[in-house]
């Protein structure tokens, strides 16, 4: 076989394993990422099948269940006990998954889409547009995240949509910076130069050379942002800025007044807390796994 043939053979062998396929194979061998997928799958199942899983109505109060003014712990009928208004804690946790998942996904979608749009504009336009957009992002970043969210909720009023906007807004500058930096880095790459020199149009270069390579850090960040969003949403809920209707089974809101019952009913604080930790941990594990799997420096090693 000639050298040219050998090279052709090599190319053929490597060809089917694209970036994504390879990443997926590495991800499958990463026990951490698999645990993350399992946690997130459980979380999504709870959210989707809540009416089938929850044995009680999460808002239904039964004050006759209370003993000495507060709340009996886990029992055969109420797996996670009942809260201070006699509502079934297990059902509230199951329905709470819906709110955490919904608010988390929508707010990341808000932050991601606005952030990516601004980042792409800044990175591709450059010059004065770039300066203005990035200074705006700097100003947003100069307000500590939770305070920015608090300010937005205080201005827009409490409610599901408002929380989504508030938490999403805190993530806009992160995504904008990330995509802009990524585009700038890719623009100088040899393969972009090569594409340009053989006459590939600008738009095609952006769409098929720059963006696919710039997008993998965005996917990693997006997964990690879901974790942050769930924590932030719970934080707002904990501070009493959650959904307007206080009977809404939102995990952070469920934690709000529990410090008062720590002595008599610690389960009220522990159960929603553990639910938050497990869902956040799931997204963090997937995010870390994806980062390793998509890292071009590690490609071809696994």
């Amino acid at each position, binding site marked *: 076989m000639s050298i040219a043939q050998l090279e052709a053979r090599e190319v053929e062998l490597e060809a089917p394993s694209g970036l994504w396929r390879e990443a997926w194979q590495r991800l499958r061998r990463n026990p951490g990422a698999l645990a993350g997928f399992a946690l997130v799958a459980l979380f999504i199942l709870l959210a989707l099948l809540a009416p089938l899983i929850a044995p009680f109505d999460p808002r239904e109060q039964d004050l006759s269940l209370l003993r000495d003014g507060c709340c009996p712990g886990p029992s055969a009928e109420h797996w996670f006990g009942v809260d201070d208004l006699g509502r079934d804690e297990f059902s509230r946790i199951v329905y709470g998954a819906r709110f955490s998942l919904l608010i988390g996904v929508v707010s990341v979608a808000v932050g991601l889409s606005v952030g990516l749009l601004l980042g792409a504009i800044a990175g591709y336009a450059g010059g004065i547009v770039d300066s203005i957009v990035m200074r*705006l992002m700097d*100003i947003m970043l100069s307000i500590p995240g939770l*305070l920015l969210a608090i300010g937005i909720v205080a201005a827009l009023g409490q409610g599901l949509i408002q929380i989504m906007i508030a938490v999403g807004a805190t993530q806009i500058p992160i995504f904008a910076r990330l995509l802009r930096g990524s585009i700038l880095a890719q623009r100088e790459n040899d393969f972009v130069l090569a594409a340009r020199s053989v006459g590939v149009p600008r738009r095609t270069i952006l769409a098929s050379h720059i963006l696919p390579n710039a997008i993998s850090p965005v996917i990693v960040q997006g997964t990690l942002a879901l974790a942050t969003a769930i924590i932030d949403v719970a934080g707002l809920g*904990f*501070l009493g800025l959650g959904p307007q209707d206080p009977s809404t089974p939102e995990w952070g809101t469920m934690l709000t007044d529990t410090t008062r019952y720590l002595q008599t009913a610690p389960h009220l604080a522990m159960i929603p*807390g553990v639910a938050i930790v497990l869902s*956040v941990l799931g997204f963090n594990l997937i995010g870390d796994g994806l980062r390793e799997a998509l890292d071009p420096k590690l490609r071809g090693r696994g």
Partner: protein
Amino acid sequence: MLRFVVRRLLLLVPILIGLSILVFLWIRILPGGPAQALLGERGTDEQAAQIERQYGLDEPIHVQYWKYVQTVANGDFGDSIATRRPVVEELKQRFPATIELALAAMFFSIVLGIPLGFIAAKRYGGAVDHASLLISLIGISVPIFFLAIILKYVFAVKLGWLPTVGRLSVLIDLEHPTGFYVLDAILTGNLEALWDALKHLVLPAVALGSIPLAVIARITRAAVLDVQNEDYVRTARAKGVSPGRVDTRHVLRNALLPIATIIGLQTGLLLSGAVLTETVFAWPGIGTWLVGAIRVRDFPVLQGGILFVSVVFVLVNLFVDVMYAVINPRIRFS
């Protein structure tokens, strides 16, 4: 070096202007407008009109903004609706509490995080390494307020070792020349108060320091692993420098650069986290103050507080950047 500092200071100007515009506009887009916000929920339309004249809210918006900048520059953030006291006075009273808590948290996370990351890197791939990675992963997955609740439950409620709320026991007398209780106790030589203030500080500081701890440990590990294989480290070893000296003078010293950056970046998280931690431990700082202000819709407090905290955050970042230049000769001499 001087040019670097001057450039960095100039970059501050657009940020501060933008920040003031944002906070200025924020109160003007509130439902019902600023007059309603200043009056609270009980205000009538007549009162609102009067307030609008009194505060010049019927003037063109750029005139209003200019006046706002002037009053803020004079250190006037208006009066709190709830207490009728100047916002600045309450700020002065509560700020030291938050700073004390943040410093304690930072101290905790640095003193524990750097050695933890260092040991993990030295035993790369070993049990300590895996354990520290796992702990730091869980560390960043636990919401700070939940960790605070767990700590409070275990050490204050169950074991009764530490106090549950506040900065000082009611029965202890302490003069407050500075507002930093630990410092106050040392300055006045009040040992009983010092012990009590420290005991109150432990749980909130550990809770607030947990995320920076996890992040610092992770970064230290990565930085040490990076530096360890550098040529100059091998050279130092080859010429017979003792292992301890190589670790401190060559490895750790160079690893400190990324660590210092990440410590600076934690300030924003620390200020956000303080709001949550203070709420759990009823710590009378900026956080509980702002949360209380949201509940009664005390907008002058929110406006002043958020602006003030953000400016502090920006200044801390500036300080970190300058310090970074000081410890990094590559920036210092360029």
